[in-house]
């Protein structure tokens, strides 16, 4: 957390509830010494609650699109394949090349397609979803730490 404005060693610094005897200004026994600087007030950026955050809405959309597209593509192709196997046996048993029936060829093609689908899923997830999720997680961590400091 490089950009964290409050390094951990700072957490023992006077918080919002100072010690009772420090509440009055300290007596200046040595007038030539400048008065100690007032304890730094923690200024916290105001952020809305997490649930309605627009980042989350964008993430929800990105995730939803990715899930729907990938799931429906995989399932759709397989259902099409099943349907053809069941209801179009003549098409599936016609041979294309090399004496291998179309049905078997379509089945074998699914394996390379699986690898392509995984690669595509990984790439879109890394590019579209991960940065959003990271941002939200960091904000949530900040929120949590802010609440813990109170």
């Amino acid at each position, binding site marked *: 957390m490089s950009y964290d404005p409050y390094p951990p060693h700072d957490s023992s610094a006077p918080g919002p509830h100072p010690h009772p005897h420090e509440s009055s200004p300290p007596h200046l026994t040595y007038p030539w010494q400048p008065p100690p600087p007032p304890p730094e007030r923690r200024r916290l950026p105001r952020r809305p609650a997490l649930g309605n955050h627009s980042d989350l809405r964008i993430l929800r959309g990105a995730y939803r699109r990715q899930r729907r597209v990938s799931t429906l593509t*995989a399932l759709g192709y397989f259902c099409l394949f099943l349907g053809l196997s069941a*209801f179009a046996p003549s098409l599936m048993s016609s041979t294309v090349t090399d*004496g291998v029936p179309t049905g078997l060829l379509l089945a074998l093609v699914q394996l390379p397609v*699986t690898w392509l689908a995984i690669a595509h899923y990984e790439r879109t997830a890394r590019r579209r979803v991960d940065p959003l999720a990271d941002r939200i*997680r960091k904000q949530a961590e900040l929120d949590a730490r802010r*609440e813990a400091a109170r």
Partner: protein
Amino acid sequence: MTGATATTAMTGLRDSSQTMSLVAFTTVATITLLLCVMTGPDRDDLDEFYTGYGSLSPLRNGLAIAGDYISAASVLGTGGVIALYGYDGMVLALSTALSLMLLMFLLAEPLRNAGRFTMGDALARRMPGRSVRIVACAVTITALMPLMLVQLAGAGQLLAFILGFSSEWFQTGCIIGLGALMISYAAIGGMKGTALIQILKIVMLLGSGIVIAVLVLNRFHWDLGAFFDTAAERSGAGPAFLHSGLEFAGGPSPRLDMISSQLTVVLGGACLPHITMRMYTASSARQVRRSMSWAVSSVALFVVIVTVVGFGATALVGRATIARADPQGNTAYLLGSRAVFGADVSTTETLLFTTVTTAVFLTLLASVAGMILACANSLAHDVFATRVQEMPVRREMTLARYSALAVGVPAILLATLVQHRGLQPLVTLSFCLGASAIAPALVYSLFWRRYTRTGLLSTLIGGTLAVLLLMPGTNLVSGSPTAAFPDADFNWFPFTTTGLVTIPLGFALGWLGTVASGRKKEEEQRRQYEAMEGWILAGAVRRDSGGTHAETPHDRRKSPA
């Protein structure tokens, strides 16, 4: 029953090979047990016992997921179906791979974010309460117990087959001995120990499988057309072996039966709790994704292997011999591997074949250990640990270990009872439960905001009961010579799986339960879901959701800032 016929069918398997297998099995059993002891959790730490601290790299975790996923039932069962029915078996293998891919695309990441140790955790994240956890545990055990029985009973048959014994007592002894070994893996090793065994197993299975597949194709000079034609010819079914419809030919609506069976496998296969529990071991959503990529790739590779070996078994041995050795074809994978080497076998080839049998043996051991662990974790964490407010960590771990015993011993006893029946309906039962009860519950509770507790309970309970009611009436249980009860006929639901009715029913019950619980409850759930949406989608930590203690420090450490 099988043992006696198997030994005659396996006359080519000579003494030297049997001795070598026996030595290899003993060595493997010893080494894996040692590994479990060495890598088991060394402190009283729940996270370490239940998840292995997310310390596995994505590749290793992915291999462990694939190891858990490819159970002995898939190696032997799918190999058998391919050898006996050709095309339909191959589609079954593809369904298996697709199922894991769907898990990766749809559920893996949110499941990892929502859950902590068990399925009960993932479901109870939104709907806290004991009832949800207890039902989740009950469904976990109901779904996994049949699969454990199949593997345990299969272990006895397989050992008798490989080692060439035919006595019933020997098979029963094998089941008890192996069962004790599997319980110790789960109890001693915890998540990390079993992960190691799964990795060892999958590497061995894929490695030996690739060699065998290459040898099979080499026998046909890499001519796929000739390969499939020979298989079709030796199957006795001719070209029908290479189209759909051989496996489901008996029923009144074979096409519908085929489609619903395959979709049941697709939806149910990867949702079973011993697979989903491996999602929680990854340290972040990104790690889950990487792990699943490895897992799906390994399973796809395995589909290629089992297809080649299955078709190869038919092409080299002939369907009649395979069916004589085992009516379900469970020994086809081994017969195919054996047949590649031809009549006279050199020492190297014997060694290679021993590697195959050892891989299968390890598969049996590891897959049951994973299932016992999933049940035991659920029992300890969801049922016992929530009974009191704050259970000491040491006590919960002891409980988890005793739970492994409490799950394993009944499984062994039941397995000795069912070992001489057809085991196919039990596998189907597990997959149907996964597809009709667990899949709808997970999908709804991770993605549907208004889903209420009533909806969840009615999905889980209703889906399970529907499967349990319909299952005895299906094709595999009675009414045909290959069924589990060949002499009786109470086959009133003329399909192979119950999926056609129970999957829509499971989803419908969840919807009905939610609607019936009223608008106020729905809105309440909606607010609650929105409060933790950041958690489920991004793995973000919110203090008020009450789970930070376990995941925050770890996430923070691992996530690249």
